[in-house]
């Protein structure tokens, strides 16, 4: 019994740690991108959640005529579960505040950034866009719908 308690405590401690770690990871990545953005454009004032929100909901016209935004799959609230518009499969929340598995692996985040930006915009997003985007994700803390 005592052993089980220790295991449970360790497990709880680990999850609490990783939950914090991934918000911290997201902040670290946002900082990295904002530093790059500033070196590219000295006028860049630093990451803006409002710009990130605009970017997230901005509909982009694709080559096939469809209009798409991040929100098309991920809903207008990144703390909510999304739905893949091609496959119809559920997508876990983007916000690292709600879904602590997000931003656990920074390499994977950067890879997915490139793939998703290529899918929608047709090229990689700028560092400023990425910094704004992550900063916006971190502000969305409450899911609107309960499933």
């Amino acid at each position, binding site marked *: 019994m005592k052993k089980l308690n220790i295991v449970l405590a360790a497990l709880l401690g680990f999850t609490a740690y990783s939950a914090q770690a991934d918000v911290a990871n997201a902040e670290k990545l946002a900082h990295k991108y904002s530093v790059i953005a500033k070196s590219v454009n000295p006028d860049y004032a630093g990451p803006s959640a409002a710009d990130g929100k605009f970017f997230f909901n901005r509909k982009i016209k694709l080559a096939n005529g469809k209009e798409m935004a991040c929100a098309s799959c991920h809903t207008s609230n990144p703390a909510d579960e999304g739905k*893949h518009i*091609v*496959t119809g*499969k*559920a997508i*876990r929340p983007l916000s690292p505040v709600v879904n602590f598995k997000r931003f*656990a692996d920074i390499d994977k985040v950067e890879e997915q950034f490139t*793939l998703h930006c290529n*899918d929608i915009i047709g090229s990689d997003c700028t560092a400023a866009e990425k910094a704004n985007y992550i900063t916006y994700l971190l502000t969305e803390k409450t899911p609107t719908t309960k499933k």
Partner: protein
Amino acid sequence: MIKVETPMNYVWDPFVRTFHWSLVIAFSVAFYTHASEWHRLIHVRAGYAAGALMLARIVWGLMKTGYASFDSFPLNPVRAAKHIFYVINGNARRYIGHNPAGSLVIYAMLAFGLTAVASGWLVYNEGWLIDQPEFLQALHHYSTWGWLLLVAMHVIGVVTESILHKDNLILAMITGCKRVSRKGEKQARQDIA
């Protein structure tokens, strides 16, 4: 069992040939569509097709289907290593079906291929059965690249053997027929016996 009375120039049956090139197409489609979310459904369907093809091939291999039967190319890593050594020394003997090194790659391709499809299936249905997305994605990633590496080894083997035995093994997978030397035929009888 394989009939050894007739000259064995007909090696790959229609099922094996259809399976082989269908798998090439399914793998290529899945590989080409793997990066884009827009192609996700095509990717998944190509993957499932590849999985179904491999399962059918395993059933076919368990049946008495001559050179297509698993009995005709047993998994034997020691013999595979020896065969590679003989090839390097220039005294490799000829096998009508798969040579031991080729056989090893075939079994590895089946194992990696099925792992790739199974892990892809679980990645696609995230949260179902095994709720470990990171682990499954890594498994899918590495098993697929491993599979591709094995395909490269398979192609290198085919080209090497084609040059060594002055035969066109790619054409053999289309027509089903291989050029058979008397010596090879005799040894093939010993293999089967």
